[in-house]
């Protein structure tokens, strides 16, 4: 069964560095949107077919330290999370600025299941 280890925001990058040092491969990250409560961000790693998972729970609007400087493969994953869930990352090695999937003029964001938008639609006066 799925039993991730909880980590804090300060442990995200040190954990990634430790995993890389110990020979773990990054599989992916998963975002679970908890609505007003915030979101869960899972980090999935693999080594010789063994899977190890970490879970970070954060309130909405939290800026997550990017692990793309440790695992280059994280750059697309984190840009995707930015597009689809509006999660902000700090230190992305290649920042698409929310245009990986979306139009470059995609403001306000209107991704299929983006709830945590940092943009606000202007109120249209009738």
């Amino acid at each position, binding site marked *: 069964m799925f039993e991730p280890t909880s980590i804090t925001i300060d442990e995200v990058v040190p954990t990634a560095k430790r995993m890389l040092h110990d020979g773990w491969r990054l*599989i992916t990250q998963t975002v679970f949107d908890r609505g007003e409560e915030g979101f869960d961000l899972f980090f999935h790693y693999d080594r010789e077919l063994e899977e190890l998972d970490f879970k970070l729970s954060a309130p909405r609007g939290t800026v997550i330290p990017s692990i793309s400087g440790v695992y280059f*493969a994280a750059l697309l994953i984190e840009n995707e999370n930015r597009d689809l869930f509006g999660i902000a990352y700090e230190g992305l090695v290649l920042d698409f600025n929310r245009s990986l999937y979306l139009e470059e003029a995609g403001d306000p964001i209107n*991704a299929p299941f983006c709830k945590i938008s940092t943009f606000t639609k202007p109120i249209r006066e009738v």
Partner: protein
Amino acid sequence: MARTIIPFGPQHPVLPEPLHLKLTLEDETVVEAIPALGYIHRGLEGLARGRDFNQMVYVVERVCGICSCIHALCYCNCIEKLMGLDVPRRAKYLRVIWSELHRIHSHLLWLGLFADAFGFESLFMALWRVRERVMNILEATAGNRVIISVNIIGGVRRDINGAMLQHMLLDLDAIEKELKPLYSTMMNDYTVQKRTVGVGVLSKEQAYALGSAGPVLRGSGWAQDMRQLKYEAFEDLDFEPVVEHEGDCFARNKVRFREVFQSIDLVREAIRKLPDGDLAVKVKGNPEGEITFRVEQPRGELFYYVRCNGEKNPERVRIRTPTFANIPPLLAMLPGVQLADVPVIALSIDPCISCTER
């Protein structure tokens, strides 16, 4: 030297799907490649919240046509494990047979496209002619050629009778016989070697550190294949990953061609060991909990995270496809290569953009 930025894709003769790379060139040499995605993003993960867990089988099958059967297999395993369902052994074997047939036709499709990418059109046509035989088997056993919809939660929808199994064995013999000379051509032909040997090299260390999956990982010397996890009937079948060590386009090509023969052997073995029994178990209630599951698609490791709360709709279905994992390695392969080699290298990861963008 002045740099030029040119677009590679989204519409390009070698690309079956819209992959877009922004290539920065110095003369004819690539110095940087930046991907641009989003042409066929459909929000299928988001659909999970609006479909019940049975309907989601059909949704995940449409993530990608070529490996639809394996997407459904992975998703069904997640739900079955959450619900504690004991899938009948016959169903597990049938799932393996259909998924290996999918692997064969996917690899043959790619091998044909790859031959076409370096201008070997007769090889392309010969490979696709053989692929038609596999498509005919799928149609005869499942009623459809590509999206065969045989997996359901708890087992499989259809059986394969004894006469059809015998017919399949004869067909597999013919497929193998027709493929052997094509394998020899692919491995020994001057043109193939000239365009692929030493091109797009990904070292063993790079392949692992960049999170590669499937034939890209195995072509760089890593013996990692999710079928080693022994899901479904693989626990009873003889399986060793196909590995090559050179890390170039030729090695990835060789891994896939050898895997075609391996999959033929796996189907034969599964048919030989196919047990009698039911096709599915009855499903009661709704799934609850969260789980991850991994299987091996033709393009590599497929990862699913599924979370359910006891209601009929899943709360979250997360899909990480192998092409998504293989784009960072592609970005590492391209700097330093000639522009003329970009189509061959881009194709060598077997890019499936429908999978990537979901």
